[in-house]
């Protein structure tokens, strides 16, 4: 089974890095979609099957927190695992996000190994069971 993944970050640089890390992961990849904010992400989600969302928080027009809220009230999106990748360091904010149902949180700057480990854990890490 190949997984479709959506990368949501207003930084094209970060999306490119995440794409490279995905290529290095054990996860069998289907399509990798990209969005520059929450609005674009919802458009992708409404017209494509997505197995995992990686999202930043601080983005123009619609940030990650609002995107998560909208996903969690949509029957078609609420079960999609979400990983937040952000510079946010506030325990309160991270706890709020966990309460909203995100699966994991990764703080920038992250190493490829950090992100790869989380993705492998959530999606199973490939045919051999992953990391």
């Amino acid at each position, binding site marked *: 089974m190949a997984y479709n993944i959506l990368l949501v970050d207003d930084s094209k640089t970060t999306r490119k890095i995440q794409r490279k890390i995905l290529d290095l992961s054990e996860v069998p990849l289907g399509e990798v979609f990209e969005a520059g904010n929450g609005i674009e992400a919802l458009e992708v989600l409404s017209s494509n099957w997505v197995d995992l969302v990686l999202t930043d928080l601080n983005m123009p027009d619609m940030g990650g927190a609002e995107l998560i809220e909208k996903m969690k009230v949509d029957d078609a999106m609420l079960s999609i695992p979400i990983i937040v990748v952000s*510079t946010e360091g*506030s325990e309160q904010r991270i706890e709020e996000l966990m309460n909203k149902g995100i699966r994991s949180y990764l703080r920038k700057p992250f190493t490829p190994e950090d992100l790869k480990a989380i993705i492998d854990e959530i999606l199973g890490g490939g045919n051999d069971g992953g990391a």
Partner: protein
Amino acid sequence: MRSLEVEMMEGHEWDVLRTCFIQILEDTAFMFAETTIDEDETDETEEMGDNLEEVEISFSGSIAGSLAIVCDEAFMTDLAANILGLDPEELTAGEDKIDALKELLNIICGNFLTAIGGSKEVYDLTIPKLGMIGSIGLLREKMQRVGFFDVDGNNVALALRMES
């Protein structure tokens, strides 16, 4: 009149910011920064040259203010190439270079705020924006503290403004 306590606090914050800048450059782009001159040694700043780019981010919460990085295109090119693992010649879009610089500043700001305020504090950050600073003199007028770094042969200025 500013109290000694306030000045000491700002000195501490500057040291933390400088450490964040150096560490995050190393972690994200494998680039190594050394402090060249401090803010009072103004003459050397002319080495920054013309055609400087500036990115700035503001923050609010228990403390508020803004951070800025000023550099030339050579640094932006090296930064983006290092982050993306490309040769500088492979980078054709100026947008990629600016984006990399904005993301660097975003990461520095988030980590700086947690380092000085702790993880209990909540801060709001703006989206990093591009400015065009005419001169280091204008940067000094706008910001409270400016420091200069040699980053793998590139001159880079880092600036901090804190609201009291």
